[in-house]
Structure formats: C-alpha cells, structure tokens
C-alpha cells in the first residue's frame, strides 16, 4: 500500500543561489491500495511526472511523506523489488549498449546476486509480452516503438512488483499499438496480481485501464473519481477536460 501525505515539491529557478522557487506540487494526499489501478491525469506541466518521481523515490518531497507499506519511498531497501516503472521515452528506456537479454537480466540480478539466472525465465518474460526469443540478442535501436515498450514492460514485471508506475507509457506510441499495449497491461495485471499507477494526459487511455482517476492541475489534486462515474465529475476543470474528449 502506498500512502502520500501532504506532499509539497518546488524547484529552484535560475542558479544555485537563486531565491526564487517554482512550486510544482502542493498539498498532495492520496492512497493507493494494492491491486488497484489508479490513473493520474493532467496536462503538460501539471506536475504529474514530478509526482511520479516522488512516488518512485528517485526524488524526495520538500514536505510531507511518500510511504510504501509505512516505509519512506526514498529508502532504497524499502522499495527494492516492490515497485517498478515504465517510462514514456522508449528510445532511452533501455541502455543503448545492452541487448534485450542483458536489459531483462538487470532486474533479475537484484534478487539473485550470483547472476545464475535461468535463461528460460527470460524467454518466458518475452513470451508474456508477445515477443519471441529471437529478440534476446537485439539491441534497442533495432526495435520498433511498440517492441521496445513491450521489452520495458517485461523488464518492469521481471521483479514481480506489487506496483508498476507507468509514466506516459503509451503516449508516444501510435493508436493501434497503444491499444495492444493497454490490453497487454490488462492481462499482466491479472497474471501477476499487481496494480498500476498510470500517469497520462490521455483520459481515454486512463479510462480504458484504470479503476479510479485522479485529476491533477497546477500541482494540486482537482478531483478523484471512480472510472465508472467519470461522467459525474464535480469540478469545472474536470468537466472541461472531459468535454474536450467527448466532443
């Protein structure tokens, strides 16, 4: 379970000694329950990716706390293996010098230090995301966008995490591939019994995958609503966002 309490984050604008700071997130509190798929929706610059980095523990909030099972997210051992991520930019998601096999090995070595990893495990992972074992020796620049994103998903599920954070994971793929990847995510969710935090600007994709969506605007939570009651949103901003999609 993930608990976020009154999180604030700001960044310095300008040089090292600059006084001015830009407030990116303020007063963010929510909970994510195991197995749930939570969508975080917002426009560019709304702070949703910053929130993603805080949830992953890569950065620390200025105030407030982000806790996985009661332990702070920026504590490496607390989140080790329990949380994973898929990012937007598939061109830089895999180390350009690594083959697919080596990229998939990486999360596995986290648990098994002696790198004595069953090679069938890698085949199985590839198979689960709809790729065959001929991909093992390919380099990332030889993959298409959809294939690269599938490899990233395979890499993310390799540690069998309880939660995967998808930061605009389908946004840079084209329409039909988006649906394929979303379907893949749906099937993996049941196979591995895990949950997602799905950060996106695309309400339709979020509605397709998520149980609950949280609409973020200018670093604040505008509204949180269950997907099946998406039409009953209260705040004017959320209504406007929905109208744009419906139209």
């Amino acid at each position, binding site marked *: 379970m993930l608990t976020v309490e009154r999180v604030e984050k700001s960044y310095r604008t300008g040089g*090292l000694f600059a006084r001015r700071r830009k407030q990116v997130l303020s007063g963010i509190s929510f909970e994510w329950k195991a197995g749930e798929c939570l969508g975080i929706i917002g426009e560019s610059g709304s702070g949703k990716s910053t929130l993603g*980095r805080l949830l*992953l*523990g*890569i950065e620390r909030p200025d105030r407030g706390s982000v806790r996985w099972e009661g332990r702070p997210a920026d504590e*490496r*051992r607390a*989140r*080790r*293996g329990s*949380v*994973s*991520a898929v*990012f*937007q*930019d598939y061109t*830089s*998601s*895999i*180390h*350009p*010098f690594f083959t697919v096999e080596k*990229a998939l090995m*990486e*999360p596995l070595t*986290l648990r098994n230090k002696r790198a004595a990893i069953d090679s069938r495990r890698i085949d199985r992972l590839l198979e689960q995301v709809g790729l065959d074992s001929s991909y093992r020796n390919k*380099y990332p*620049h*030889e993959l298409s966008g959809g294939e690269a994103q599938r490899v*990233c998903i395979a*890499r993310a599920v390799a*540690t069998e995490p309880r939660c995967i*954070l998808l930061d605009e994971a389908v946004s840079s793929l084209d329409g039909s591939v988006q649906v394929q990847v979303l379907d893949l995510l749906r099937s993996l969710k049941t196979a591995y019994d895990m949950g997602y935090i799905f950060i996106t600007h695309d309400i339709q994709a979020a509605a397709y995958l998520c149980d609950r969506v949280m609409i973020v605007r200018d670093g604040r939570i505008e509204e949180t609503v269950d997907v099946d009651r998406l039409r009953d949103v209260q705040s004017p901003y959320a209504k406007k966002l929905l109208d744009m999609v419906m139209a």
Partner: protein
Amino acid sequence: MRWLRPIGQDKLAALSLFLISTTLFAGLFAPFLAPHAPDEVHMELRFAAPSWEYWLGNDQLGRCVLSRLLYGIRPSVLWVGVALALSAGIGTIVGFVAGYFRGATDAVLMRICDGMLSFPGYVLTLAVIGILGVGLENILIAFALMKWAWFARVIRTSVRQYADSDYVRFAKTLGFGDVRIMARHLVPAALPDMAVAASSTFGSMILQISGFSFLGLGIQAPHAEWGMMLNEARTVMFSKPELMLAPGIAIILVVSAVNYLSDSLQLALDPRLATSRRAPHSRTVAESAKLQGSEVA
C-alpha cells in the same frame, strides 16, 4: 572481448594497435633491444650516414640515433601515458561525481574546474617548472595538475546527458546503488567520449613534452627524448636535415596511431555505430535486387 573483434576487421585500427603495442614493448625493453648505449659518444662517427652497425646513422656526437630513439620512448610515451592516466583518472572521478549528483556538488566542482581552466596551460606548466625546477617529473606533475579539469569538464557533460535518461531512472527505481549504476550504465556510455578525450590529450601531451624538452626545460642531456632529439637536430637543420626525420616521424606515427585507435574504439564500443557500419553491406544487396526488379519491369 566483444570490442576487439571490430578492431581486427578495421585494418587501420589493427595497424595502430600494433604500432602502439610495439612502441610500448620497445620502450619497456629498450636496454635489450637498443644496439648501442644511448649516450655512447663516438666523435669519429659524427653525422655518419646510416650503416649496418648504426641503422639510423649517428648524431652530432656520433651517438646511435636508433638507440636514442628507443630509449626516448620511455619519457615520450610511457611517462606521458602515466601522466595521462593520472589526470584522466582524477578528471573521470570528478566528472562522474559532478555529472551524476548535480546540484551543489556539481556547482562547487565545476567552479574549481573553471578556476583551473582559466590559467593558460603552457604558462601554468612553466610556473610549476619555475617553482619545482627543471625536469621531466615536474612537467608530468604539472600536466596531471592542469589537465584533470579539462577531463572533468568533458566527462561531466557526457555523464550528465546519460544520467537523465530513463534507463538510469529505471535502475534507480529498482533500488540499485549509485556506484553500481555508474559502473554498469554510465561508464560504458561515457567510455567512447573518454577514449576520444584521452587520445587527443595524449597526442598533445607528447607534443608538449617534446616542446618543453626542445626549450631545454624537460629531460636533461645526455638523456634521450624525442623532442630533445629534434632540438639537437635543429642546430644542423640546414646542413643535415635528415637528423630531424627519425624523431619527427616517430612522434607523428605514435600520435596518429593513438588517434586512429581511439576513433575505431569509439565505433567498436557503440552497437548503434557497429550496425550502421555493418548494415550497408546487406542493404546494398537488397538495393541491387530492387534495381534488378525495376530493370526487368
């Protein structure tokens, strides 16, 4: 060794590697390989032309040019290599720390680098020689002190670029330590840049050491050093210009070999470049097939 294979295919790189390793070997084993003692004077053989006993002839004191060339490898190539490794090592560590951790660490380290870089290199080397005295080791100390800042700059830029990428973020998410992330992800990515920076500095260091010896600030006579051999040949530049050939060609060969090798090392390390080099082969086959098809039509 994955990267050794493409070097074997690249003839120029293979030749460069061979040349460099032969040079290093010859420098290490100079006492066994040199036909004569490097400072053995034979006044009767002054400016003698190449002969079976003295392959490259004799200099103004009748010393064997070949032996002096072989002994000269030590200061000109081996010690320069040590100074290079030292400054590249310091620069790499500083560059990685600054580029990876950013923020205040980065700012402080880079201001120190700016301070170092604001002194012109030659002048500071001269100043260090002025303080510590004339001699090879002091020049090498000055080099190590001067050049690390430049390395740090280059490597920091390259690390910064990769430290932002999603694969590093993913490794951080998984909970790998910073040192492991740097070793596994950033070192391979930054290695081509490091190789190019180091090789170009190696060339300029050899030339600078030669330059300082030429000015009489480096190696002291009667020890052999390539730059000093050039300097000695300079006095008879018009009557015996061939004396400049041996050290001059040696410097040019070693410097170009290092540069060519680092170039192809860069190609060998990066799989993206490797396939783009391999690909045209298969593509031409496909293209010619297509051409035939259209010709038939």
